[in-house]
């Protein structure tokens, strides 16, 4: 009986280990490649034949092709604003749909969910020409608008969480003369930390991971206006890849840094939020 149990544990862990290796190989490869001493791609060996960190240094020395510093700052700026706007929108819509009592609540929710089911890329051309009408193409404001405009539609997960906030707390507050804004800010928000963390992280990630919209909207070819994704992609052109592939890998590693930092900071709140609990006893 005991042997069977140990056997089960071993086989489970073995399976997990194998899956881990499969999942980590591309990341390990990218890290190794970024420390290669050769500028070009060479997959004849898994590990680079010579190691060097010089391309990380070169990544921060801008030339006509590589303007990583500018791209990074652009993306960071866009991500911060998108993150703020998205989080506010999502939380407010979720609050209204969870706590509000109005006639159109159900139909509105249904419409929002249905709209959200359409893949955003389908609206690409319409979005582009709308932005152009307002002269917002090739501007970061345009990109921020695109990333954050429909964020309210993603309220569903957040609303589900708000539904679990005890109504007794809100009713007590209301009896004491608290208005809706204060209930939202001082009761619902503090009890919903995990979902806020989730919303912040996911909305911050959108601009870092998006390529399609950035490529389409930043179409004037002005390299210093690019986001990281568009800029790095351009390095893979057949006439550039021989001199920029390793730099491309370095850039690929470094884009994950702000996301990782954000995650580490937020993780603390995430765990706290889950364990804290709102109503004692």
């Amino acid at each position, binding site marked *: 009986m005991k042997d069977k149990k140990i056997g089960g544990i071993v086989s489970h862990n073995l399976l997990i280990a194998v899956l881990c290796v499969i999942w980590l190989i591309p990341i390990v490869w990218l890290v190794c490649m970024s420390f290669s001493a*050769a500028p*070009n*791609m*060479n*997959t*004849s060996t898994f590990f680079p034949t010579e190691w060097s960190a010089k391309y990380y240094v070169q990544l921060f020395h801008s030339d*006509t*092709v590589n303007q990583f510093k500018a791209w990074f700052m652009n993306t960071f700026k866009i991500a911060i604003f998108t993150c703020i706007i998205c989080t506010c929108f999502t939380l407010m819509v979720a609050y209204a749909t969870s706590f509000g009592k109005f006639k159109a609540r159900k139909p509105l929710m249904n419409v929002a969910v249905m709209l959200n089911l359409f893949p955003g890329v389908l609206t690409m051309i319409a979005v*582009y020409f709308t932005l*152009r009408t307002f002269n917002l*193409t090739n501007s970061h404001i345009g990109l921020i608008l695109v990333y954050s405009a429909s964020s309210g539609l993603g309220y569903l997960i957040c609303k589900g969480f708000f539904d679990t906030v005890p109504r007794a707390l809100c009713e007590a507050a209301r009896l004491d003369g608290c208005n809706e804004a204060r209930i939202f800010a001082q009761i619902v928000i503090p009890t919903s930390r995990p979902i806020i963390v989730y919303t912040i992280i996911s909305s911050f990630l959108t601009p870092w991971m998006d390529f399609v919209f950035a490529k*389409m909207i930043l*179409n*004037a*070819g*002005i*390299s210093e206006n690019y986001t990281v994704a568009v800029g790095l992609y*351009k390095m893979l*052109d*057949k*006439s*550039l*890849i*021989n001199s920029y592939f390793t730099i491309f890998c370095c850039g690929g590693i470094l884009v994950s840094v702000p996301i990782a930092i954000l995650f580490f900071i937020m993780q603390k709140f995430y765990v706290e939020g889950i364990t804290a609990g709102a109503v004692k006893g």
Partner: protein
Amino acid sequence: MKKLLSLVLALTMVLSLGAIAFADGPIALTVWGAEEDQTYLAERIEAFKAAYPDQEFDITLGVESESTAKDTILTDVEAAADVYAFASDQLPDLVNAGAILDLSTVEEALKSVAGKSLDDIKAANVEGSITAATYNDTFYAFPFASDGFFMFYDPDYISEEDAQTWEGLLDAAAAAGKKVGMTLASGWYNTAFFNAAGFSTSLNADGTTNMDWNGTSPDGYTGVQVVQAMQAIAGHDAFMAIADGDISNQIAGGDLAAVISGTWDTALVSDTFGEDYMACALPLLTLGEDQVPTRGTVSFKMIGVNPYAENAGWAVMLAEFLTNEESQVARFEAREIPPTNIAASESEAVQANKGVVGLTEAAAVGVVQSVGGKYWDPTASFGEQIAQGTIGTDEASIQTALDQLVEGVTAAVG
């Protein structure tokens, strides 16, 4: 109807610029060029400003690779740059979309300011490049560089004589334990074998492609013969079929003694094969009892002007300036790209450049490709089938595969 409308719009726009006005304020122009050309272009733009000191300019330089220019321009022609570089195979699509200016409409201006007629420009560049810049008998763009693929080989393993034929080349590579690399899964490369037999493709006005590779060529070879020759090459132990876009990676891998690639890989080849590397035309192909040259694809890079440009007159001046003899010499010095300007290509430095020599040799027997959008996918998968060896070697299966290929390529558009 839409096409007609855009044509009318473009026409009304260009009719208003018979002559160039020297404006009081700065003339705003936008230019798109390849990433690797940015430094060079910035210098030439300064030279342009210096050449016209009486006029103030505000020129913005943007990045757009020649190979993807069409896609970006056609997304939104009005937002595209006034002056842009592109590859010659994109010309029909640009013309059909009304995204490129007919240069004859500005010839007067060109004569009065730059002192050159279109005939002068046509005479100054190699004939092939002018043909490639002409569509439906209209001259649309200023050529500045030739492009195409040829063969690099390592003289340590392969002698000049071996490099003459595919058999010699592959046997020599096999003897040295090395490989010969080429991309088969791309219609840009694998058309070389069909061109060798005298087959060709052509483009119709509605965007469909004509292809007769499943029949007999004007030179009397059948498509089946060509495929058999390709199968013999692809089946050789020393042949390495390289995926499209992976050539640079494989050169760096060090297993190759010869590779079919282009000037963009020159520096890498020099590092891997050594500075004594050789560049030449593709080897002779054996068809039946004859040996014929393998005719690669030749294309040209050129600069066109957007008909929606606000200052189309000055845009044409700039396009002409960026492609004149002096600019082409400067471009060769910066990038080692073979010029199309006849005078520029006669310089000693150009003549001594191995990549240029290889491309010139290949271009001498090369073919300017004329195909529509439906050409690429079927030819790529056909090449992949040959590389994988999934087509049987008997005539019937080859004929079936060719019939399928032709059916796919000649399919209606839309």
